[in-house]
């Protein structure tokens, strides 16, 4: 009994790897250029670096956009010759931001993003059903922020982050021929971000930003067991009629360091590059503390600790924009995103791959209105899966693409 949840994996990973792999979708213009950060054209810079607001040309800028993110993961077991594909629905991340400069050296802004929001859906009877059948995540970031221009060529900005999230996780508990659902719709946490934005030369933008870790706290989660017969519920300390128990968990989201720069090679042509460093090492394990159910693996049998063993990871990005006219812009980019865990730690609820992504898009500007479209094609690298702790062995590969539509409005 104690072991039935041993495979329960890490909500932490869930919140950051929704949909299977790291998806960077917080600005349509940015995505088209490999999701690089040193772009202070409009309020979409807010998520990337609050300090960028000070260099937005307009006093007021409003942006909003949405994406479609499609992905499919395939797992094959070379021992049993089974092959399984996910059937993930389309993910639809959204963003909106506003930046306003009431006085010359001060900008205020607000950013709303759904940086992680997707669903991984394996066939409910696949071989890894004990680990995950379906995992749905929604998250919302609310970030008020302020930026001060310290000098004509440098600004400093900071933001407060309030994060809210939902996790809904189905998995089989095969020992009882049943299932377990772990759900919390009210997980929340807070953090902060800050950054410097430099423009030492009209041709060069440099963005340095830091986003803090956030401990997403699920204080009142519900674990619902469904067994063929309810006779077991009282033995597990579950509600006899519903099979439910409460749990708490803290789901750490990691910090991110970003340095980005944009160089205007000619007035019409700019090139951008970014380097991100993600502090995934915080995810050494996840602890689920159940109210009553003795389904853990610790001396206190209601506490379940699942190893995660993430490692810090890096992303490198390179993008470019060319202005065909004052109204039409073409954009391209490519980036490489490193998986935060080794083959020995691969988990199917948050499958992750070293991924190359090719991006592109167009922008159209009509007076104060901007319309941008972007697309991304991901080439996740197939990998060997050798998770000895879970006895999960085989090979995994994935496919993914993204598309997005963004609007911007810069009235004055």
């Amino acid at each position, binding site marked *: 009994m104690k072991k039935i949840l041993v495979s329960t994996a890490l909500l932490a990973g869930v919140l950051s790897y929704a949909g299977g792999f790291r998806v960077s979708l917080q600005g349509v213009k940015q995505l088209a250029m490999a999701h690089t950060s040193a772009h202070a054209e409009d309020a979409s810079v807010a998520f990337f670096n609050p300090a960028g607001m000070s260099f937005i040309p307009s006093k007021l800028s409003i942006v909003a956009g949405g994406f479609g993110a499609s992905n499919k993961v395939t797992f094959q077991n070379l*021992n*049993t010759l089974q092959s399984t594909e996910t059937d993930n629905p389309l993910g639809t991340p959204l963003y909106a931001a506003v930046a306003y400069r009431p006085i010359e050296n001060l900008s205020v802004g607000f950013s709303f993003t759904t940086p992680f929001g997707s669903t991984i859906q394996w066939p409910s009877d696949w*071989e890894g059903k004990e680990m995950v059948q379906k995992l749905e995540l929604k998250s919302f970031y609310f970030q008020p922020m302020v930026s001060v221009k310290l000098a004509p060529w440098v600004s400093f900005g900071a933001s407060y982050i309030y994060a809210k999230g939902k996790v809904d996780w189905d998995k089989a508990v*095969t020992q009882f021929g049943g299932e377990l659902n772990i759900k919390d719709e009210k997980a929340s946490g807070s953090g902060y971000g800050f950054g410097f934005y430099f423009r030492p030369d009209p041709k060069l933008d440099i963005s340095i930003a830091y986003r803090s870790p956030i401990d997403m706290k699920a204080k009142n989660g519900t674990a619902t067991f469904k067994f063929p017969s309810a*006779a077991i519920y009282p*033995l597990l300390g579950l509600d006899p009629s519903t099979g439910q128990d409460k749990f708490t968990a803290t789901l750490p989201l990691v910090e991110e360091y970003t340095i980005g720069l944009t160089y205007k090679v000619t007035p019409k042509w700019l090139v951008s590059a970014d380097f991100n460093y993600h502090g995934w090492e915080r995810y050494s394990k996840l602890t689920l503390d159940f109210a009553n159910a003795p389904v853990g693996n610790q001396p206190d049998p209601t506490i379940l600790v699942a190893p995660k063993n993430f490692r810090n990871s890096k992303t490198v990005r*390179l993008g470019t924009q060319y202005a065909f006219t004052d109204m039409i812009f073409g954009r391209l980019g490519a980036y490489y995103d490193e998986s935060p865990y080794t083959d020995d730690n691969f988990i199917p609820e948050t499958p992750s791959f070293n991924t*190359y992504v090719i991006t592109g898009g167009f922008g159209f500007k009509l007076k104060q209105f901007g319309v941008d479209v972007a697309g991304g094609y991901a080439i996740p690298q197939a990998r060997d899966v050798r998770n*000895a702790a879970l*006895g999960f062995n085989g090979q995994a590969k994935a496919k993914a693409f993204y598309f997005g539509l963004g609007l911007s409005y810069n009235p004055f």
Partner: protein
Amino acid sequence: MKKIIISTLAVSALLLTTSCNNDFDTDVKDIQVTKGDADFSKYISLGNSLTSGYRDGALYSSGQNESYPSMIAAQMQLAGGGAFKQPLIPNDVGGFIGLPGFPGKLTLQVAANGSLGPVPSSPAAALDNVTAGGPYQNMGVPGAKSFHLVAPGYGSGAGLATGTANPYFVRFATSATTSVLADAMAQKATFFSLWIGNNDVLSYATNGGTNSQTVGGVTTYTTATVQNGNVNPQTYKSNDISDPNLVAGSIKAVLDGLKSVGTTKGVIANIPYVTSIPFFTTVPYNPLTPTTLGANLATLNASLYGPLKQALTAFGAGDRINLLSSTSSNPVLIKDVALTDLSAQLTAALTPSLGAPTAAAFGQIFGQARQATSEDYILLTTSSLIGTTAPGVPSPVNVYGISYPLQNQHVLTKTETAYVKTAVDAYNSSIKSLADSYGLAFVDANSKMIELNGKSGISYDGVKYTAKFVTGGAFSLDGVHLTGRGYAVVANEFIKTINMKYRSTLPQVDPNKYSGVKFP
């Protein structure tokens, strides 16, 4: 600057195009299952209960359908394997009506006090005969010891009464005089598996190293013999440990018999240490907590443990018993026949204080008594006995495990455990050398069981299997035999070694797809 950017772009593009490996080298859908050097067209399996698919204390149809040879046969069918027929019990309960000692399967039930426990069912049908439906490729016979495979008459209905036959083999034996081996040879199989020898020590262990005899409703227990230098099984009692030479000779006879009809390719498995199974590891040696003992703790120390300790100390055996602790769990009292019998000395020492008749009873009861240690194994079936009243014993020294020692048949003592291990090591050494000399694939079932019994168990796609009773998932409710999932783990070990030896590519099975312990 411009140059740097352009060259960076070029390098990135190059990286993208050269290092992309986003597809599998080999897709499992394209893999052909091959038989290698083996021929799986007719596979037969020989063995005991483990081979038959026995579990939950009975042989029943759904369990048989999840026997490990049946799983292996299904994978062999992907590489030209033939049909694999099993002598299925005609119901899903098992047991034989009218045959004492053959109840139906155990099922897990919630007792009145809310705890879960296995409860035996009534047998579902009388002994049937399915010989006409044969021959059967699964020839596993529950209860068979190594020498039974070569014993003529082991399938004789008439032999049941005299104990020379086995009802499971009676069901499908082709004649009253045949042997399991003879019926196997008649099939002229192309491939075989053999896993035998467990029962040559298991029944000794599960009976606490005793043989029993019931006369007129009264059962008496005698110490079973560790046979050594005696290879005539007709002189053995049912729970004796078989002579290693007899086991090796019997297995060799099976291999020679099969070889004589051309069945030369196969797989053989060794014997797990029986003490790694839940039947021996579930009941702790020290279940007597201060809470369960309550007020009796002080009384026991003053009137029983104290005087006994004092008397035993005088005879140089003071380490047999210590006073009960009021802060930690206490071991049960057991009788250990390997100890020097101090009955007479105890009687003499206690006579002045207790009077002659009581002192004589004490001497008789505690002459070979001691507290259990972590090296003794309390049998699973003994668990319900601890704390109950021993019949025919005067109060207050009649509470099993507390004031009255658990008897020889209730405990596998340290000494008996050593006999078991010595025998298994000898059997396994022979099995390995036979495997080598006959060129067979060899399954180290012992290692796998030790792995299962280890702290981390065996994980498979997120399901963790351990040798823990009921909740470990691998062992059925009898604490000795596996679940369908446990048998699948075994099947995979067979498949791996077959593939290695014969260069075949049989796929493994997914243990999680089979049934485990069924909860109410």
